């Protein structure tokens, strides 16, 4: 009897989880479906779900109008560069906060997080002026630095949480065996925190990929990533929903595929230390 209840509960939980998953995924599914419709079908009321004349015309138009590969490369460079640069800075910072905390460590952690609460537009003009002075406007390097700085508090916080779960005695033992600080971090700490570092890397890559304020405001023609590519198909005066959907699908496809293949690592990393 008890087993039957457990099975029923499992089935219910599965059904609820699938329902929530479908609700969350539905906008993406609808975008993908719309990208294969004509503009007239895209706005038809009642909307058509699967039974319409599928067309690749929107993709052809988008390919012809935009240099997709350039936007894609910029996205990969900026998201990848900012994440790696962020990790290089964040790993030692999180190590020191986790294993050799000072009286101010908690205050510093909270202060770092508070910078995320500042509306980005509040510092748009100072950053823009700095970029002009430093010749970084519309450059991949400039965007990489800005996105790294924006995501750095999250990277440090995540790594700090993972590092706190690692017993300090192990590191002490390594020190007793004569390991230097860099060796301790590279050969002892990092392998033990791989799931955490991997999920931090993935999450920040996704955050940087999707960032759409700085990437739109600090770029023009050369360094614009896929967020600018999508923005170029949005229009308040003209119905271009099917083309916009095709552009959106092309922009999210790489990150969607990457997320699909790395979901195990993501879940493992995000739940790392959640259950003691």
């Amino acid at each position, binding site marked *: 009897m008890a087993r039957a209840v457990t099975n029923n509960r499992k089935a219910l939980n599965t059904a609820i989880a699938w329902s929530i998953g479908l609700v969350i995924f539905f906008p993406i599914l609808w975008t993908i479906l719309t990208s294969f419709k004509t*503009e007239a079908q895209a706005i038809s009321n009642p909307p058509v779900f699967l039974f319409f004349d599928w067309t690749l015309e929107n993709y052809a138009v988008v390919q012809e*109008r935009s240099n997709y590969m350039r936007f894609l490369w910029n996205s990969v460079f900026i998201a990848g560069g900012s994440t790696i640069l962020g990790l290089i800075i964040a790993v030692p910072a999180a190590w020191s906060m986790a294993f050799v905390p000072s009286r101010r460590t908690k205050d510093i952690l909270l202060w770092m997080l508070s910078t995320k609460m500042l509306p980005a537009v509040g510092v748009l*003009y100072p950053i823009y002026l700095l*970029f002009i002075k430093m010749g970084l406007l519309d450059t991949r390097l400039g965007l990489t630095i800005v996105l790294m700085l924006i995501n750095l508090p999250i990277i440090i916080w995540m790594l700090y949480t993972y590092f706190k779960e690692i017993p300090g005695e192990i590191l002490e033992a390594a020190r007793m065996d004569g390991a230097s600080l860099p060796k301790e971090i590279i050969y002892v700490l990092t392998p033990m925190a791989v799931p955490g570092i991997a999920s931090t890397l993935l999450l920040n890559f996704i955050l940087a990929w999707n960032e759409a304020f700085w990437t739109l*405001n600090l770029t*023009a023609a050369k360094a614009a990533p896929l967020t600018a590519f999508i923005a*170029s198909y949005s229009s*308040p005066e*003209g*119905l271009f929903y099917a083309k916009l959907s095709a552009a959106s699908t092309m922009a999210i496809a790489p990150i969607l595929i990457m997320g699909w293949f790395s979901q195990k690592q993501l879940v493992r990393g995000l739940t790392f230390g959640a259950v003691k």
Partner: protein
Amino acid sequence: MIYTVSRLMGACAIAALSTAATAETLTIATVNNGDMIRMQGYTDNFTEKTGHTVEWVTLEENVLRQRVTTDISTKGGAFDIMTIGMYETPIWGANGWLVPLDGLSEEYDVGDILPAMSGGLSHDGTLYAAPFYGESSMIMYRTDLMEAAGMEMPDAPTWDFIGEAARAMTDRDNEINGICLRGKAGWGEGGAFITAMSNSFGARWFDMDWNAQFDTQPWADTLNFYVNLMNDAGPPGYATNGFNENLSLFQQGKCGMWIDATVAASFVTNPDDSTVADKVGFALAPDTGLGKRSNWLWAWALAIPAGTQKEDAAKEFIEWATSKEYIELVAENEGWANVPPGARASLYENPNYQEVPFAQKTLDSILSADPNDSTVEPSPYVGIQFAAIPEFAGIATEVSQEFSAVYAGQQTVEEALAKAQALTNDAMEAAGYR
């Protein structure tokens, strides 16, 4: 002989070098609409003629506005040409942020630009942006539904006629709404429509001392008329409808009438997208007999930011893109219905273009709009659906949010007007106008 050949080769090398030296790459910020995208497709023609290449930055209208404003106000120099509208041009021209468009070639024929357009894109008589295309607003209506209602649309109807016709055409059982109008919050969406409409009811935003005028009877008349009309004959949820939502409804045969931008005429008469393409008629925007109609005036225009290092090449591009030759190039390849409208007088004198069904009404609408004299009572501002002052966009967005709350049934007309009056006066006082 050898000497001659050497001299020829030398001359060729110098010519090649000089071409390379003057060839520039222009970065142009523009909006995503049909005409602008079409222009991008003809960029090769410009490159062939001048040697200059072009890199496009295409953005959604509101994103573009924020992006170019940041760049020009900081002298960032990210763009060599910007696509801006009638609202920004006189303000930026007055600030010295734009290069005056003087010294344009004789072949360009600057005198051919419609006076309403050149007037709205100038400051102190100096042209700061060249119109790529211009638009006003007009009535687009279903001829079959109008006939079924036993009525006939005049060329220049009144709001009373529109109200009567809308209620007669409404058929709730068949999801046909007598009229579709913008109600969405935003100064360029519902705010633009209600401001243009208020002009025909004798309202204005400010008196000559920059005092807000929402506590006057014409504003109450405007808003009450709009709300009653839309509640009786408008689509459900009209408070969130903008241009695209109404275009979609009209194309699917769910609107008897639609009053909006003249550029919509080419969309609703396109049989590929519209189910009612062969049943559309056009008329001037309505009035109330006070001498002002409820149509607006707008242009997307090309301007050169003062910080650019490529001023000469940028001028060459603007001359090419807004020339008579460009219009002929588009007509030759894609037909006269697809040329950018509303900018040049010669287009409307062209017999080929006169055959386009909405051409004459578009021209009449543009010619009847005067940004320098838009209100019945005198007003201190330039602009029809806006007041060309930097503070307007922020104030009008808040005011239109209050109005949209009325359309959604969240507050009364009186409450919205009282709030609009207070917030406008506060903002104008803070800005030093009062």
